[in-house]
């Protein structure tokens, strides 16, 4: 078996990024769209940690902490918006919220 190299981690991260992008673009349920965004941010973190390990530099891990911080902030605000939206429109389907559509 080949030893695992940085490229394995990069390929895995690219795969997770693509899965998350498919989820954001195709799903209708807003909760699942927010979960897909979490998948994308995790793909970013895998990349950062892989390079941090490859170059023995702590900067990558520090940036992964900042990415996790932003993921938490994004989830909190996004779910708050979702609750406000559900109270006003009674729907969680992304394509039924078309107030700005002409």
């Amino acid at each position: 078996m080949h030893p695992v190299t940085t490229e394995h981690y990069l390929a895995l991260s690219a795969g997770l990024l693509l899965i998350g992008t498919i989820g954001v673009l195709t799903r209708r349920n807003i909760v699942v769209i927010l979960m897909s965004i979490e998948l994308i941010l995790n793909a970013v973190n895998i990349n950062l940690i892989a390079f941090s390990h490859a170059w023995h530099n702590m900067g990558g891990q520090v940036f992964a902490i900042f990415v996790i911080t932003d993921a938490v902030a994004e989830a909190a605000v996004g779910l708050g918006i979702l609750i406000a939206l559900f109270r006003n429109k009674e729907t969680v389907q992304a394509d039924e919220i078309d107030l700005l559509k002409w």
Partner: protein
Amino acid sequence: MLDTVLFYSFAVLVLGGGIFTITRRSAVHSAISLIVSLLGVAGLYLLQAAEFLFAVQIVLYVGGIMVLFLFVIMLVYLDDAAHMREFNRQWLVALVAVTVVGAELGYFFHRGAASFHRVAYVLVATVPPAAGNTEALADSLFSEYLLPFEIASLVLLVAVVGSVIMAKKRI
């Protein structure tokens, strides 16, 4: 040998959990699959000697964000939402676009493979670090990245206030 086996099993967890997350009809099933995927990512952190981030991933993501998600699913859950169409009308265009992006990424990996610093991952570190991972991370975070750290706390404060204002009925 063992690290290769571990890497591939964690990779299966991550990608399988991700695929189930975006294909399950019920939002609760999606959330459970996302937990599996996030635990796989945590295992990958451990494999790369990032022990502190492993703990943060489990405590914050699996323990914090996922509970938040399940709580919101409970608050807004609609039974008929589970019986409606799962994907929107543009799904074919989206799949084509994502395939193009994936092909581009594959091309980059193919062309730029030589420029990556190839590191073989082994479970036992060849050079034992002077201090642990958490100490090294704290040294970097509280000296070199002190200002971004403070700004991150500001971001969190704004997010907390913003989400309370969003979710409150009457301010």
